[in-house]
């Protein structure tokens, strides 16, 4: 297994820059997710690490060794695609063993490796089955097996669960993470689905417009988003953004939100008078008649124990996650109280988070840009 290091990696296609100088290190044995919308450069980055694409600039290091210009086949990395093509005329064991057969390995050795791989994936009972008879999940497992059997240094996965429906996808996430814990292989996983990334990864790199916006553990990224983009991309429903105008001084614990004064985590970074955004996660909102921010209930969505209540305020629509036994009728006027210590502040112009006591500048782990 291996450590993967990416240094100032950049890729341009003619005028268009797909990846703008990324820097990050993926530690040996860790599960690293690259998360972002389509076109953010995550797949291009992955393909450069795999050797399927040559970078315009920068280096890729595998266990400290520069492999930037080495062919994909010589990198000892396994790639798992979204559309897993299995050989229809071979059974499961032959499909899994195929990469070894191509390497010219002896039949007995292949059989041992295939059995061992199938055991890890818990598909031993399917080894002699035809691939056309398999369920979607089992086909995915076989595809993984074919990648695993070579015992590569790292696994690169490009939206491998993209084709599955939501409930099954979450189930497979649990399985993939369990598998990762069993074999401890360095894994890079590309997805646009925040839930997949949150569910599986040790570290997430959120990408936007060819740049890495933030790198951190799922909880760090959720609790302390470095930018409006990250805050909006992670969480469902996403963070609420309320625009206001103010001047911030270091040590302030209250902001002037329109006519109201709202308590926030202590400000650690001064900000000249200008447009700001108050960020509030839906679960950090309570109804309170005495609250300064008032609104009308637009909709209430029952989800079992909780409900998502959407409230129209003078500052935009706000989603709150509340217990479902709380009455919220459409048209009701309600006051919205925010959990002060969990509020986030952003500069509306740059989109960057403003450092507060809950969010030190250090934890704004933004990777260097070229």
């Amino acid at each position: 297994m291996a450590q993967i290091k990416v240094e100032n990696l950049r890729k341009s296609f003619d005028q268009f820059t797909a990846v703008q100088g990324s820097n990050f290190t993926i530690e040996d044995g860790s599960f690293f997710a690259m998360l972002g919308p389509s076109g953010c450069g995550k797949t291009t980055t992955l393909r450069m690490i795999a050797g399927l694409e040559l970078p315009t600039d920068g280096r890729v290091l595998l266990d400290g060794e520069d492999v930037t210009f080495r062919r994909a086949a010589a990198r000892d990395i396994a790639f798992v695609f979204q559309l897993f093509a299995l050989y229809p005329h071979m059974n499961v064991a032959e499909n899994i063993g195929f990469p070894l057969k191509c390497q010219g390995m002896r039949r007995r050795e292949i059989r041992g490796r295939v059995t061992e791989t199938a055991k890890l994936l818990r598909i031993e009972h399917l080894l002699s089955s035809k691939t056309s008879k398999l369920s979607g999940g089992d086909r995915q497992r076989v595809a993984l097996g074919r990648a695993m059997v070579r015992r590569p240094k790292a696994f690169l996965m490009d939206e491998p669960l993209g084709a599955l429906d939501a409930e099954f996808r979450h189930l497979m996430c649990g399985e993939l993470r369990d598998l990762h814990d069993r074999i401890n292989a360095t894994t890079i996983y590309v997805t646009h689905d925040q839930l997949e990334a949150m569910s599986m990864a040790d570290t997430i790199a959120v990408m936007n417009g060819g740049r890495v916006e933030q790198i951190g553990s799922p909880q760090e990224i959720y609790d302390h988003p470095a930018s409006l983009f990250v805050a909006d991309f992670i969480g469902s429903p996403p963070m609420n953004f309320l625009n206001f105008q103010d001047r911030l001084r270091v040590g302030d614990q209250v902001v002037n939100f329109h006519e109201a004064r709202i308590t926030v985590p202590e400000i650690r970074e001064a900000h000249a008078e200008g447009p700001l955004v108050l960020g509030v996660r839906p679960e950090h909102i309570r109804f309170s008649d005495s609250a300064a921010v008032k609104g009308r209930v637009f909709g209430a969505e029952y989800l079992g124990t909780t409900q998502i209540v959407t409230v129209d305020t003078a500052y935009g629509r706000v989603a709150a996650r509340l217990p479902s036994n709380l009455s919220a009728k459409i048209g009701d006027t309600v006051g919205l109280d925010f959990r002060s210590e969990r509020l986030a502040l952003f500069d509306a112009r740059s989109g960057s988070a403003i450092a507060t006591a809950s969010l030190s500048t250090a934890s704004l782990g933004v990777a260097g840009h070229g």
Partner: protein
Amino acid sequence: MADVTLQNVSKRFGTIEAVREFSLAVKDGEFVVLLGPSGAGKTTILRLITGLERPDAGSILIDGRDVTDDPPGSRDIAFVFQQYSLYPHLTVYDNLAFPLRSPARRVPEPLIKKRVEQTAELLHISSKLKNPATRLSGGEMQRVAIGRALVRDPSIYLMDEPLSSLDAKLRAELRLELKRIQLELGATILYVTHDQVEAMTMASRIGVIRDGQLLQLGSPREIYENPADRYVASRLGTPQINFLPARLIPGVPTPTGTETVGVRTEHLQIAARNGGSLIGRIHRVEHLGEQNHVHLEYKGEMLVTLADPHAPLDAGQDVELHLLHPLYFDAAGRRIPAVMQ
């Protein structure tokens, strides 16, 4: 608007019984969602109501009138499909006006204009009326498709997974919009989906169906809190309800005949060991932001519970389990009322 009733409707395709003895009454102004996996017979039920399929047995009534033998055109129904098929060569305005311009209807042009503008307003697409239909985002196209049904003021709207081709964010937005429009218009809607969130968030009543049969009909809260059987209990709630064989929890009192005990994830409480008899081991803690999913192992069974994201829990730790509001099921999966012996 009107109510729609299906009485003991059955439909068979060759050897497959797609719909079996199906009875359902959708009341005027109600939003009923049929929830079931693919192949459960959802779409067939909609096609039977429209008249695109004829039932083998049973009858269909719209506003008390038996329409079982009426052709589709005379049933006064609007249908919204999963794939929004707009006319690519027409503008948004003309797409919306199209159903009203049908020679069978003869709606005067000024009235068409009024209806189209009202509908566009309702769907927040007024600024796009002059756009070609192809120059819209996915969400806008689906709004136009829904709008094409809305301009007509039919007795009932039938919707077949209209949001499933949209991305998650848009789907969440349109769920809210659709519910608002339904309330504003007092529209009667029968909506089919395999997505439990759509069912829970929009329905006045949910009908859970499987293999062409209606298993339970009730408000989202009734279905969630009071499921009639094991399948219904597992169909609603994410993560899924936990099931434990009763024989594995000898210390917990259960009604006679209980085979399985169901505990929703939010009702499975964990605590530090303190003399309790049910001890589970944490297998994995999944950080999802606003809460953690804690995966536990208890006597070989995998269970899931919810925890505060900042709770100090780690894999390998032993914890005590407490079951709140357990649901009891017999060997056939039927619910047993929680009356203690």
